């Protein structure tokens, strides 16, 4: 018998820390939930791993890989609990963070405040040094300024420093020189240079990359150290990887140096898992739908792969690094249902969160929530919630929704139910409009997409949402509650690189053709990437280079992204790149302009180090044996819904709505007129019966 081999995926959430254990020999997955310890998240990681080691009689050394997703950095940014830090900028730029990009959050509402700058104005310091836009030095570093600066930083007792010198996206050497000088003078202070972390033009956004990196640097470093110590204590020697914003993972060493790469990794992992599930079903057009306690997130995948954005937010701050494109679309299970003065039914934006939580939790919540609606309509069973670990108070939920019904002017014995159903209709309508808009942004048709539903409330709401938004199918993975942890162990190692480089290329550029410079830039990035990936650990096998460009016609104000398939990389020519650009421009704007030279704005490279894949396990075939039913309020009257246990639904199982499928970590609701079929992996596919 071969030696046992395991991988563990971990996702730390606010309430629970989720674990997925992959047994590579038997190709099985096991799941575990451990209550989170917000004060020390590594404690719940240790406890969970210890629990699994003992439950499955594993040896610590048999764990070959741990992939860990964490929201510590994100939470620190949102709650503003990061390091005491300073930022050093070029002269004249002290107000970089005060002015930001000038826009205020609302054009209508003068009471909506601007963001609080990441670094207060008295911890912003200027030095004379700066670059020109052509990459040469306009003003060199002044040694006396450095000494004075170091003295100030010492006096201010900062833990971290970010450096942003003008035009350093062209060449980081001035920043590095300053950074090196500061490190030497301020031992223990962590320094982040903008041109090293993300050399993209635009000083505010690049400054924030360095600033946010510095802000979470001390916190993340100490967390990683603590985590490693706890694992050592358990005898687990497996390398630890941290999930990244781009859907990949990073070695602990890389994550330590570049924690900013990990802040948005949680939702990205769910998308990675969704695309793997889609690939297994040859379904490439997906909308991922992750609905938890406080919010619901969606992401569109048009070609079976996660899609990226370079315009997202971390808390109040824009982030320009490529991240998996996940957008919030509103309500979660804890979102509060209320009635405004004019008698309109509203959902959110306030949420009861995990504490006190919905009214039915009986922990002091008094305002009706979406979860309370599920309970009183009969979609959630108050006795089996979380596998029976928590009894839900239906009477209290009914009282709360009766209050809503009263304010809506409803009457009759069933008015609480009517109000609950109305609330779910409003929630679905709101989410549906957000999906429509997101698809409009991508310019695609919703009917071709399947909704992949996960998170604690995703499968409960998904069918209602799909029906509202005109989507024709819903996929519910086998373990929706730990789906992000699963995504963690499915991730390859990945890092992204950028060069801001403006050159004219292609036939129309004539003698100005700067293609040779572009090739040199790409080769420089590839060299850097190869050196990096070679150090990312033994588990990383072959790697793949993904080259892309941001291009425009000379004189245009906006750019289009053109991706180069890896097979086309060798012998890539300027003409080829231009042809791809012309085609994309024509697709989007209806014309191409061969007379105008094409201009590059940025060259980008993603390096993907392949990690030997974890196979998604096959489910044993099997139809549900027993069936009972319970009353459900739907469509304005009481109906009877069949109730199934998820464990009974083997591959090929077929059930018809109205139906409820219960499992430990979620409840799936199947509408009348819809049916669900389990695929060979055990995922449920919900479709309209007529279409089936």
């Amino acid at each position, binding site marked *: 018998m071969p030696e046992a081999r395991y991988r563990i995926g971990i996702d730390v959430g606010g309430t629970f820390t989720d674990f997925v254990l992959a047994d590579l020999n038997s190709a099985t997955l096991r799941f575990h939930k451990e209550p989170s310890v917000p004060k020390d998240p590594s404690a719940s990681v240790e406890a969970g791993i210890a629990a699994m080691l003992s439950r499955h009689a594993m040896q610590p050394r048999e764990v070959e890989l741990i992939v860990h997703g964490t929201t510590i950095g994100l939470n620190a940014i949102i709650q503003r609990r990061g390091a005491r830090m300073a930022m050093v900028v070029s*002269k*004249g*730029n*002290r*107000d970089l963070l*005060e*002015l*930001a*990009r*000038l*826009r*205020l959050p*609302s*054009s*209508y*509402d*003068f*009471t909506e*405040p*601007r963001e609080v700058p990441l670094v*207060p*104005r*008295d911890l912003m310091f200027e030095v004379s040094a700066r670059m*020109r*836009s052509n990459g040469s030095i*306009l003003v060199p570093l002044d040694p006396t300024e450095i000494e004075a600066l170091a003295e100030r930083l010492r006096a201010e007792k900062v833990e971290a420093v970010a450096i942003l010198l*003008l*035009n350093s996206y062209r060449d980081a050497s001035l920043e590095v020189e300053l950074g090196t000088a500061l490190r030497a003078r301020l031992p223990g202070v962590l320094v982040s240079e903008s041109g090293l972390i993300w050399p993209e*033009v*635009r*000083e*505010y*956004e690049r400054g924030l990359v360095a600033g946010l990196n510095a802000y979470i640097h001390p916190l993340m470093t100490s967390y990683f150290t603590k985590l490693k110590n706890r694992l050592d204590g358990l005898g687990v020697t497996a390398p630890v990887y941290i999930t990244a914003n781009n859907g990949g993972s990073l070695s602990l060493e890389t994550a330590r140096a570049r924690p900013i790469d990990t802040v948005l990794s949680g939702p990205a992992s769910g998308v990675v898992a969704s695309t793997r599930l889609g690939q297994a079903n040859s379904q490439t057009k997906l909308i991922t739908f992750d609905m938890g306690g406080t919010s619901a997130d969606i992401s569109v995948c048009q070609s079976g792969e996660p899609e990226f954005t370079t315009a997202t937010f971390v808390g109040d701050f824009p982030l320009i690094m490529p991240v998996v494109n996940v957008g919030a679309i509103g309500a979660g299970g804890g979102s509060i249902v209320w009635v*405004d*003065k*004019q*008698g*309109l*039914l*509203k959902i959110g934006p306030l949420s009861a969160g995990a504490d006190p939580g919905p009214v039915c939790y009986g922990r002091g919540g008094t305002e009706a929530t979406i979860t309370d609606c599920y309970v009183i309509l009969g979609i959630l069973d108050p006795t089996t919630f979380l596998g029976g670990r928590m009894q839900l108070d239906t009477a209290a939920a009914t009282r709360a929704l009766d209050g809503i019904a009263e304010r*809506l*002017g409803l009457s009759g014995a069933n008015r609480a139910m009517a109000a609950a159903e*109305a609330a779910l*209709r*409003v929630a679905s*309508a*709101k989410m549906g*409009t*957000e999906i*429509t*808009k997101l698809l*409009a*942004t991508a*310019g695609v048709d919703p009917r071709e997409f399947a909704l992949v539903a996960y998170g604690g409330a995703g499968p409960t709401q998904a069918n209602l949402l799909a029906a509202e938004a005109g989507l024709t199918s819903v996929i519910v993975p086998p373990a929706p509650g730990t789906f992000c942890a699963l995504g963690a162990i499915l991730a390859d190692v990945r890092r992204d690189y950028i060069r801001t480089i403006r050159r004219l290329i292609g036939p129309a550029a004539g003698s100005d053709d700067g293609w040779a410079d572009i090739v040199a830039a790409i080769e420089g990035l590839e060299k850097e990437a190869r050196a990096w990936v070679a150090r990312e650990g033994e588990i990383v096998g072959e790697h793949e280079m993904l080259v892309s460009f941001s291009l425009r016609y000379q004189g*245009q*104000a*906006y750019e289009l992204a053109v991706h180069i398939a890896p097979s086309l990389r060798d012998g890539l020519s300027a003409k080829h790149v231009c042809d791809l650009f012309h085609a994309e421009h024509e697709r*989007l*704007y*209806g014309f191409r302009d061969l007379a105008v030279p094409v201009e590059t704005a940025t060259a980008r490279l993603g390096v993907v180090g392949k990690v030997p894949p974890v196979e998604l396990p096959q489910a044993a075939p099997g139809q549900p044996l027993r069936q009972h039913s319970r009353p459900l309020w739907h469509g304005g009257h009481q109906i009877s819904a069949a109730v199934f246990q998820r464990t009974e639904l083997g591959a090929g199982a077929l059930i018809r709505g109205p139906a409820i499928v219960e499992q430990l970590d979620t409840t799936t609701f199947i509408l009348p007129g819809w049916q669900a079929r389990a695929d060979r992996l055990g995922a449920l596919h919900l479709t309209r019966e007529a279409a089936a």
Partner: protein
Amino acid sequence: MKLDPVLVEIFFHKVTAIAEEMAITLQRTARTTYVKEAGDYGCALAARGGRFFAYPKVLGVSGFLDSDVGPTMKRIPHLEPGDVVLTNHPFESEGLATHMPDLHLIRPIFFEGQIVAYAWDFIHSADIGGGVPSSISPRFSDLYQEGFQIPPVKLVKAGALNEDVLTLYKANCRTPEVNLGDIKAMLAALLVGEKRVLGLIAQHGLETFLDAQDDLVELAGTKALAVQRQIPDGEYVFSDFLDDDFNSKVPVRVRCRMVVKDGHIHLDFASSDPQVLAAYNIPTGGHRHVWLTLKLMHFIYSHDKTVPLNHGLFANVTVNAPRGTIVNPEPGAAVGVRSATAIRLNEALVGAMARAKPGLMPAPSGGIMIPCVLVEQDPASGQRRVMVLQSLVGGTGARMGSDGVDGRDSSLANQRNTPIEKTEEEAEAHIVQYALRPDSGGAGRWRGGTGVIFSVKIARFGSAVLGRGMERFVFRPWGMAGGRPGEKARVVVNAGTPQERELGKLDIFYPEPGDIVTIMTPGGGGYGDPLERPAGEVVRDVEVGYVSAGAAKCEYGVVIAGGRLDAAATEALRARLRAARGPAPDFDFGPERLAWDAVFDDATLNRMNGLLMRLGTNARPLVRRQLFERVVPDLAKVGILPLHEAVGDVAAARLRLENEMAALETMVQAMGGTIGT
């Protein structure tokens, strides 16, 4: 309401989403920076009456919510499915288009043979011909100089593009291809709007669709009225001033008389100055109009964020904007920079509301939008390159309970700035400073937001710096409820050197290589008595550098010694200042406006405008200019010279004014009273 409240709420989300999806479509496929970066475009669905029932919450221009496509559509006699109407005409559209670079498209949506709604969009296009590239300059004195006029015409007839119109259009703008790209995007957005509206009707039925419109409009009206009832009944008057009328240094007055009864608001702009021979006129058609009610919308929305964005929000608002005044000029008037006047007018509206009840609105912001433009010349080819270096605004005004925002202002365009690194990719010049301007925010219990300092070091021979929309060089953003006014705007060359020179209001300036040109924008007005600001907050302002130690002492009465608050000295100084200053005034305009008002009181100016309005439209400007320049002989020096110094001896000026008024009266009477326009 006609429908059940749950359905109304659902419709609210759905129709808003349609407008937003149109906006997304437009933005995704448009080509110009105006759309992509500045967001100078709009999309909406209009009811059969012509006003909007669905409007995006975050995308595009927020201010055009109360637009009306009705007058435009009335000019097209026969509409059929697939038609799209185009106009940019401020007068033929009766104020739908408010300057000519704005192209407006309207598509009637037919269902079973009848029009059930209109899809509308607009963009600020890159150029529409006229006297300067990009078609906007304050110097234009009539509409013909401002470019190609397009009265309502069918751009698309029953689904087929009207090539004749297109040919004519393309021949009359400098950037036809770029503009066509944007027009295509606009057409695509209208199609999306139609498709989604028909989908909604298919799902819910026509009657429900129409009922939902009515309900949402009624709902907005109800919610708005509830907010408006915070304003006590009464009549409130307030005026504000543009620095000058471009052709002279005579200020231009906008006057708002607000009459409130049980939340119903009447805005009377009569007695505002006559229209001017510059591009500052606001073409409203005399209707209730977006530029006349902008701050009311901010007021209502800020007090009830759940109000649906539709024309119902203005249901209980009426206006009077007499023909021939700057708020409703005769056809043919120049209108390109109407926004500068609209900012002042809306600040007058805010003033009237503050007279009714302080605390309802913030003090005025810096109140300017300056696209600072650099022209560089290639030494070899002589080719000129025109670049917007930065969009400059001032800070926002303080309000009850909150300081103003430093260096930003969302109240008009809420545009993004241009990164220095992007500018330096294009320009040889270097940006040497882009920072907050200390001590420019009006002092107050709540401090006005600071303005900004923007400095550029010129690199090339033959460079030029331009800035339009420069205001608040003469009159300050005023302080409210005891707050002090913000600092005025300045333009300086080589600041802090022996060669320092005050340039005043900049139209175009030709610097030498090595010169540093600095623009300083105004700060927002303060709110409440600065002596009431907790000393700790003042100390913090000094620590971070928003306020200097000197200003802390003389404006706030806070004494800082050795970097620390001197509590005893502060208390003593504050007591002394309190006694010396007396009760804080409701409004603090600064010395310039004080002197001006002392000579030109409200009643006299009303009488003057009454007389001027009896002259012909084109006779008024010269008569008016002569009158003011005779009363204030040094008026032409204003800009560098502060206005109150130009006014000089108030009593003497009053005397001259009385003589001039008598002369004006005689002249008008001699002409036999009313003269035709």
